């Protein structure tokens, strides 16, 4: 392992995206809950719903702000660290990103202002409308970003073409031929044509073969995270005997969302895995630690994968299980392409996806058991008496965060060594066509050179070839240090402020003010600062209340 620009840029991307991805799933998941609470308030006029919505909106706003701040980094990073990739994919990938800005971010950020600051400025209907727009905006944003990422996994609606360019003279003026036309010629670097992916059919790119599968899975993952986040806080209130009515009300709503999401995410996950096998067999084989392509494929539950000797040690497996899962084969015997059929240089690293996959599937299974058991106890009327179950919920949010993170890790590391994954060459029946050495082949692009010879390249891009050429490894190292420092700080402050909000609870802020007079020390009051008007009633200026 070399600490070059490629490796460090990958580390930086992993660091920044993983930190960022703590927040969007929370806001997407919580957005649904806010819409539900707003609708219930409009319908029933029950103040309890409004109070609940106000409380969750504050938490939502906090999560949203850090999501926005860490999200700008993502938009810049393709250009700063992955310039060669950006040149190659910008025509396709960039348009999805720009659409995200225009269709999602403006909608989200504009109406967020009304959602958070507009309680006293607009009527309840306009406020509810804004809540819906924010929730919709956050979902739109996930749609476009998943489209962009899915195109990297299963490109469609695009082709890789050689570029041309207008020639400039030594003064930077356009070179013109005798007829006065601008001279445009094919662009070569060191005799190799410069190529990039260009859109041929925008909608085919948008609806590439994995978009729908991955989008449903990602959104359900967000719902799982948002609902378990709310369940965690409510369970804690119930355990402490605080705001019990409010907590039970929110708990039941979130439990319904969590139960439905946990179930459906397992179903969509299964379908998505089959889709992965179809388009990225190397990735699925890595998830499963599957090497041998002949005979029935076993489903490895546990084991230690050994990439060098192409086997799994201490394996616990269901015989033929993978044949069933991949092909819906009830006979448990249809072969599944294993890593043995992938050229060694085209194989993903095995350990990270293998482990990440297991954690995700394990967590998902646990969520199903947990939510079903809770629904049973809820029906029996004993749910809130089960303290062990409440404690499980308090900490279960961490597992939900982990499941979302490792799911993406499996998807992205499993795509390696490609940054844009080329399609597998198949015959008319859909079976991969093997090369002379018995390996599956990836599609190629052939360019005819002026001298009649042909040059061919993969119809994809390797991660190693995507990095910025103008950026030195030391500079990336410096930015990693900077981001690590800032994100540790942000993470700590976020937890601190979040904890204060939870401690303050959903009650109107009288509590906080009473404490303001009582408490002293560095950090005096839980929750928000008391409104100035209330301080004035108590005969205090803000500065006095602070002393």
């Amino acid at each position, binding site marked *: 392992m070399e600490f070059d620009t490629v490796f460090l840029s990958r580390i930086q991307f992993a660091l920044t995206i993983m930190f960022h991805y703590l927040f969007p799933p929370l806001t997407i998941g919580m957005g649904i809950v806010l819409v539900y609470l707003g609708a219930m308030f409009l319908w029933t006029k029950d103040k309890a719903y409004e109070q609940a919505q106000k409380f969750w909106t504050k938490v939502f706003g906090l999560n949203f*702000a*850090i999501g926005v*701040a860490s*999200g*700008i980094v993502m*938009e*810049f990073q*393709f*250009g*700063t*660290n992955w*310039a060669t990739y*950006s040149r190659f994919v*910008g025509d396709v*990938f*960039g*348009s999805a*990103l*720009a*659409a995200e*800005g*225009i*269709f999602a*971010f*403006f909608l989200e*950020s*504009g109406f967020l*202002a*009304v959602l*958070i*600051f507009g*309680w*006293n400025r607009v009527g309840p209907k306009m406020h509810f409308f804004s809540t819906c727009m924010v929730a919709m905006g956050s979902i739109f944003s996930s749609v476009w970003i998943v489209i962009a990422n899915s195109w990297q996994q299963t490109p469609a609606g695009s082709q890789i073409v050689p570029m041309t360019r*207008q020639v*400039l*003279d030594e003064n*930077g003026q356009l070179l013109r031929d005798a007829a006065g036309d601008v001279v445009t010629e094919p662009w070569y670097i060191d005799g190799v044509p410069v190529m990039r992916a*260009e859109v*041929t*059919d*925008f909608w085919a790119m*948008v*609806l590439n073969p994995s978009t729908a599968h991955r989008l449903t899975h990602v959104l359900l993952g967000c719902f799982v995270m948002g609902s378990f986040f709310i369940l965690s806080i409510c369970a804690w209130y119930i355990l402490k005997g605080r705001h019990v009515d409010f907590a039970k009300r929110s708990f039941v709503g979130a439990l319904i969302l969590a139960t439905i999401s946990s179930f459906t995410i397992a179903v969509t996950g299964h379908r998505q895995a089959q889709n992965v096998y179809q388009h990225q067999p190397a990735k699925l084989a890595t998830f499963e630690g599957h090497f041998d392509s002949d005979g029935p494929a076993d489903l490895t539950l546990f084991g230690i994968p050994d990439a060098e000797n192409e086997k799994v040690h201490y394996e616990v497996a269901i015989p033929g299980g993978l044949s069933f899962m991949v092909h819906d084969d009830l006979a448990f015997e249809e072969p599944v392409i294993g890593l043995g059929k992938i050229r060694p240089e085209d194989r993903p690293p095995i350990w990270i996806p293998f482990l990440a996959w297991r954690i995700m599937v394990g967590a998902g299974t646990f969520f199903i058991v947990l939510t079903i058991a809770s629904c049973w106890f809820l029906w029996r009327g004993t749910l809130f008496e089960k303290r062990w179950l409440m404690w499980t919920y308090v900490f279960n949010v961490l597992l939900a965060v982990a499941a979302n993170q490792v799911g993406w890790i499996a998807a992205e590391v499993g795509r390696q060594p490609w940054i844009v994954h080329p399609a597998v060459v198949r015959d008319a029946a859909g079976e991969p066509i093997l090369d002379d050495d018995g390996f599956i082949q990836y599609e190629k692009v052939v360019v005819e050179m002026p001298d009649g010879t042909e040059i061919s390249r993969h119809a994809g891009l390797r991660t190693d070839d995507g990095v*910025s050429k*103008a*950026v030195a490894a030391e*500079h990336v190292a410096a*930015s990693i240090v900077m981001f690590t420092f*800032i994100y540790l700080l*942000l993470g700590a*402050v976020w937890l601190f*402020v979040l904890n*204060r909000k939870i401690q303050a609870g959903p009650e109107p802020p009288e509590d906080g003010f009473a404490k303001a007079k009582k408490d002293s020390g*560095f*950090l*005096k009051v839980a929750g928000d*600062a008391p409104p100035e008007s209330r301080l004035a009633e108590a005969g205090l*200026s*803000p500065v006095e209340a*602070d002393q």
Partner: protein
Amino acid sequence: MMHQALQSATQWLSQNLQWMLPDLSRETLALIWFLLLAVLLIGYAILDGFDLGVGILHPFLTKDDHERRLVMNSIGPLWDGNEVWLVTFGGALFAAFPEAYATVFSAFYLPFMLLLCALILRAVSLEFRSKVYSEVWRRVWDWLFFAGSALATVLFGVAVGNLLQGIALDEHYEFVGSLTDLANPYALVVGVLAVAAFATHGSIYLYLKTEGDLQERIKLVVWRSYFVFAALYFGVTIWTAYMVPQAANTLNEYPYLWVVPALNVLAVLNIPRAFALGSEGYAFFSSSCVIAAFVFLFMVAVFPFLVPASNDPSNSLSIVNAASSRITLRIMLLIAGLGMPCVLTYTAVIYWTFRGKVKLDETSY
């Protein structure tokens, strides 16, 4: 099944929406996108310009916590939407001119990392500051808010200053200069000019949003920042004429464009006039025009390039060579055509909702 339904729906759309896509050449589309980028950048500079300006002035005009909260809440509901203009500008640059996006962002690697750091700190300072009722806590975030705003503004200016002069590029449009090249005196002074311009713009905005004693003090700040700005504007204009004479090439080629720098001067002069006459809204409009003219003149100065090469003009990245394919530019035009009217509507709705003098309530920062 759903997938197929979606596919047939999109097929219908792409067949029946053709008339909305004008039949233009790639070169023309590239030019249109160059202008649209200017529009996005002008939108960003005017809107985020005043809230960056508020951040730059924040620690220097307030006496107590109440006033500091007023100042922060004057931009509270607006800054996030304003920053989306930058994000969308970045996305549009990526999609319409991928070569330029890649060249510029990798060339300014460390400055842009610092910029990101500044933007993050600024955003979270607003969010975190008033959450805890402690003097120390709040002062720390106050200063981080200032530092983030000032640093981001300087770095925007430095990037513009460098692009005006051109940067060293090889024939693959890869940056071959060094960090010290980027930190040249001219670029740094443009950075300081940006700070003065945004501070002036932001102070007029604050004047409009505040009242009473605080407003009286802000009045003084408006004058001070204006005079610093006017002096720098004068100096930088002369230095630019001397340092980057090629910036006027396009103006000389299309002489009617000289109207823009002329209006720019008038707008600069109109700021104090309008402000002294008591039409502060008009003064704010003038400072918005000044900022719009700056961005426009910057785009005119680099035209017909996106990134001029200082070492060898034949390596310059021209608008057409940086552009995406014709298909993508057309689709993007459709996306912009559908999206921008919505964006302008939301912006209008939000600014209307939060019009008037800033007041604190329990939803404020």
